[in-house]
């Protein structure tokens, strides 16, 4: 998008539009009782069990649910693109404009794909063929389905690229995917999807891999296109905010089954399934004051290889009734167009979630925190971390560039507090953390810890430092050595540093730590792959605690987890902080999560701090235009609020840290930018007490 900011109001005409788009046949797509199984060597995965839903022409239907619940599989089944030969549709019908897609020949199905139904995938970085030009990849469906000649196809491709907001489209047609950023690639994917004017687009987590600002751009684009071109969309997501902002109707899935179906407004206002209710409550929200613990859904989603009898949610359900009653609840209509698969659905519709006792008692306990602000435990001054890299063209010619990953950042961390660090992907958050941990070496600046300069510490001094500062990583799957048992992983530092006198006491300590992070004793014998993501994250925390640190860098510790698990981990971290007096540097890109957990927050952009302030000050009265734009971009999981919200979409992309803009690094995307901004590098100034911002305009 060329225009930097776009004003988008609420959309009161949406309901209207949906109704008028509904033509003669009421349904464009009807999925009826779909069952998909994967036959694998480890057993049969019943990935989708009897889900049904419908889509009207021109309508946006959301499919939500936690990871692995079968969202992708059900949509791939529609496209008949299930992994062969393992995946098979064992029952059900998929009617598209009245035709059962499952009965078509391969050739007929191929004709429908890309022409009538298009699909957009989650991973923009890998979904485009790296060796074919963007132009050709857009033209391909045109050539195949519409029989266009090269010239007209190219003209149309050009038009499509412009439509999805890619500047300089003519030149871009001849470029290759690697020359595009993630957001632009997703636009190209959309252009490919739109190429043949399909009737339905299935978007499988189209924005999950993107930054909030880009996510807002893409979703806005899709919404506009759907509205303007009358294309129906099935949007798959786990982000309830997105659902609230864009979807007309919502289907909630849990463990391969449909749990609830309703219009978006209805669902958010009056959830009629305990799972939906839990989901809605466990997400930290930007629009609500915090101060209490997050509500959680305890336990883990079931394993689809061996699902529980009866209601799949029952084991985690706080409103569960004796087992016999929970057996295989069917979808029941609880209101007009509102279905729920719970035996107590009607009851819940009447009395609401609280009526069933779904709000947890513990959730009400306020967190009181004592932070001693007299002396920082760690203070960072003018920290710069640059990387020399050989890039692109230069990689071949031996030339080198400098990535200014962190480019002069200063802050203090006080004992017992949680300092949040937010910013878009690539802004240098992780690098800050790694530099503090001395995993990367600072180029310039100073780090003092407990008054000691550790910037260039080495040998014994570094060892000493590292025993006090630990880390928790984002990816629970790769942060544990797969060849060691959980017990070995946790005990290793104790044995290496002789923190425990012998193996036996180390083992006892492991048990203690496991209990502390909410795991069981017997898990010490397991290997990481035998645990779920949330459990592994807990092991990661236990490992960090084994060193008895005072400071922990949490690098996006919950970003890879499902909302229900995310809440569990956040609560755990808070508990531990209270109990052990830990200090956290909490890195995340989810503004709501950061808001929930942090005492103070740093907003980073391109290696620099844009704004530093106390949490409440920052979220309530953001000073920096970037902070404002970020907050605007985050959708709030409530359609009513979303409908009334005025928000702006920040245009453009994050510039490359290899070649950051002159002057204020944000000026290329800033709505307030003026001539001066391109020249002056704004200092971080204390605008109000304890509230710093780096902008000459405030």
């Amino acid at each position, binding site marked *: 998008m060329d225009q930097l900011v776009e004003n988008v109001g609420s959309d009161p005409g949406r309901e209207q539009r949906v109704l008028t788009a509904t033509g003669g046949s009421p349904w464009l797509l009807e999925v*009826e*009782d779909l*069952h998909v*199984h994967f*036959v694998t*060597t*480890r*057993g*049969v995965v019943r990935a989708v*069990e*009897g*889900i*049904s839903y419908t889509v009207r022409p021109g309508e946006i239907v959301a499919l939500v649910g936690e990871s692995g619940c079968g969202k992708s599989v059900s949509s791939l089944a529609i496209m008949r693109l299930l992994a062969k030969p393992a995946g098979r549709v*064992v*029952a059900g019908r998929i009617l598209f404009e009245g035709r059962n897609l499952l009965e078509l020949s391969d050739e007929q199905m191929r004709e429908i794909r890309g022409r009538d139904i298009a699909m957009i995938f989650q991973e923009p970085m890998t979904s485009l063929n790296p060796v074919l030009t963007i132009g050709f990849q857009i033209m391909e469906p045109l050539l195949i389905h519409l029989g266009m000649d090269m010239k007209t196809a190219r003209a149309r491709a050009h038009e499509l690229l412009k439509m999805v907001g890619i500047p300089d489209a003519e030149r871009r047609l001849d470029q290759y995917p690697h020359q595009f950023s993630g957001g632009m690639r997703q636009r190209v994917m959309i252009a490919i999807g739109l190429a043949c004017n399909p009737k339905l687009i299935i978007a499988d987590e189209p924005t999950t891999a993107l930054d909030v600002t880009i996510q807002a751009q893409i979703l806005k684009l899709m919404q506009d296109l759907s509205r303007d071109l009358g294309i129906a969309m099935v949007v798959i997501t786990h982000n309830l905010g997105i659902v609230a902002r864009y979807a007309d109707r919502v289907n909630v899935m849990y463990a391969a*089954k*449909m749990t609830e*179906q309703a219009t978006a407004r209805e669902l958010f206002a009056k959830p009629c399934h305990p799972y939906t209710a839990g989901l809605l409550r466990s997400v930290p929200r930007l629009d609500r004051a915090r101060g209490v613990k997050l509500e959680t859904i305890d336990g883990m989603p079931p394993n689809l290889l061996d699902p529980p009898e009866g209601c799949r949610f029952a084991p985690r359900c706080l409103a569960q009734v004796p087992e016999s009653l929970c057996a295989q609840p*069917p*979808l029941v*209509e609880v209101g007009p167009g509102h*279905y729920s698969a719970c035996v107590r659905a009607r009851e819940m519709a009447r009395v609401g979630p609280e009526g069933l006792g779904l709000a947890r008692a513990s959730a009400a306990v306020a967190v009181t925190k004592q932070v001693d602000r007299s002396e920082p435990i760690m203070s960072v001054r003018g920290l710069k971390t640059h990387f020399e890299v050989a890039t692109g063209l230069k990689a071949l010619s031996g030339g080198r560039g400098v990535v200014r990953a962190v480019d002069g950042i200063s802050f203090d961390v006080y004992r017992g507090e949680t300092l949040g660090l937010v910013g878009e992907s690539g802004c240098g958050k992780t690098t800050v953390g*790694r530099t503090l*941990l001395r*995993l990367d070496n600072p180029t310039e600046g100073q780090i003092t810890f407990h008054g000691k300069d550790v910037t260039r510490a080495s040998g014994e001094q*570094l*060892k000493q430092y*590292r*025993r006090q*500062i*630990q*880390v928790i*990583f*984002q*990816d629970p799957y*790769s*942060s*544990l*050595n*797969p*060849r*060691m048992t959980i017990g070995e992983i946790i005990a*290793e*530092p104790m044995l*290496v540093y002789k923190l425990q006198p012998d193996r036996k006491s180390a083992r006892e300590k492991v048990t203690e730590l496991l209990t502390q992070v909410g795991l069981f004793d017997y898990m010490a014998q397991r290997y990481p792959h035998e645990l779920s993501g949330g459990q592994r994250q807990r092991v*990661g925390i236990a*490992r960090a605690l084994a*060193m008895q640190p005072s400071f922990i860098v949490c690098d996006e510790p919950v970003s890879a987890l499902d909302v229900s698990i995310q809440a569990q981990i956040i609560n755990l971290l808070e508990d531990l902080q209270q109990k052990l007096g830990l200090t956290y540097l909490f890195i995340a890109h989810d503004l709501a999560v950061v808001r929930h957990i942090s005492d103070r927050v740093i907003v980073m952009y391109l290696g620099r701090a844009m704004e530093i302030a106390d949490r409440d000050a920052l979220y309530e009265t953001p000073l920096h235009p970037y902070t404002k734009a970020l907050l605007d971009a985050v959708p709030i999981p409530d359609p009513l609020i979303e409908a009334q919200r005025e928000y702006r979409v920040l245009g453009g992309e994050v510039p490359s840290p290899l070649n950051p803009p002159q002057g204020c690094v944000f000026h290329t995307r800033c709505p307030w930018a003026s001539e001066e901004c391109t020249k002056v590098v704004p200092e971080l100034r204390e605008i109000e007490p304890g509230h710093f911002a780096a902008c000459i305009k405030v």
Partner: protein
Amino acid sequence: MPTATAPAITYKIPRRRHPVLQFMVQQPLGAAGLAFIVLMAVCALFAPWVAPYDPLDVDYSSMLAAPSADHWLGTDSFGRDVLSRIIFGARTALAVGFLASFTGSTIGAVTGVVSAYFGGKIDLVIQRIMDVLLSFPIIVLAITVVAVLGKNIILGVDVNLVVAIGLPMIPKVARVVRSSALAIRELPYIDAARTAGYSDTRIIFRHMVPNVVAPYLIMITAFVAQAILAEASLSFLGLGVTEPTASWGLMLSGAAADFYQQAPWMIVFPGIAISLAVFAFNLFGDSLRDWLDPKIKL
């Protein structure tokens, strides 16, 4: 809304098995290879009991005898039993093959991990050295080593032959392992180990090496096959094992071809033995790769 009814489909659900069993079910070709390898190893190990004759027994009265009840695969130009020599030849092939491939792969793997872990100058120097080794073609390097070092027999195995065959494997393994290790080095659990302040040795041997076991195992099996072929080729050229030791390549060398009309068994059976052995190892290695880590390119 129609309510869902679970379709009545029953699958034969395979029980969780021992990994070896699992491998056999999933990789029937590989299992066949493995079975043959085991058979061969057993024969080689118990060669003195399995073989009908002493492979060194020269018997000028039954030279070039055709396959018969006495000599199943005939005799060679010294009247030695071909079957017995093939069985004892398996000893040579497996001993040289395993030793060469094991030492080559192990040194290569450790070099690769060390090179990847330290990076920078150390990596650069190691890589240049590997480049140098790699620019010597295998057979050329082997010939040079054998011709230059001569023989050095310890416990019945020519150590220099093992070196000659194993040496060229080092850079190849190092390359593959290095790229795996480079990826592992970037993984958070290594960072975690570094944050814990563990020593380099501990990180390399406790955290990195065990995680390159997959490529290492795959390379070992693949290289056993290559080593067996190399031993045969070198012996064929007269640079490997020497008479009267039984070796498949040696059985084909020299005048063997000249007896092909008179005694075709002299050139057919050892050739088949080599092929079968190498075939089995490749079959097993390939399947092992498919099973453990299909991304590893050899």
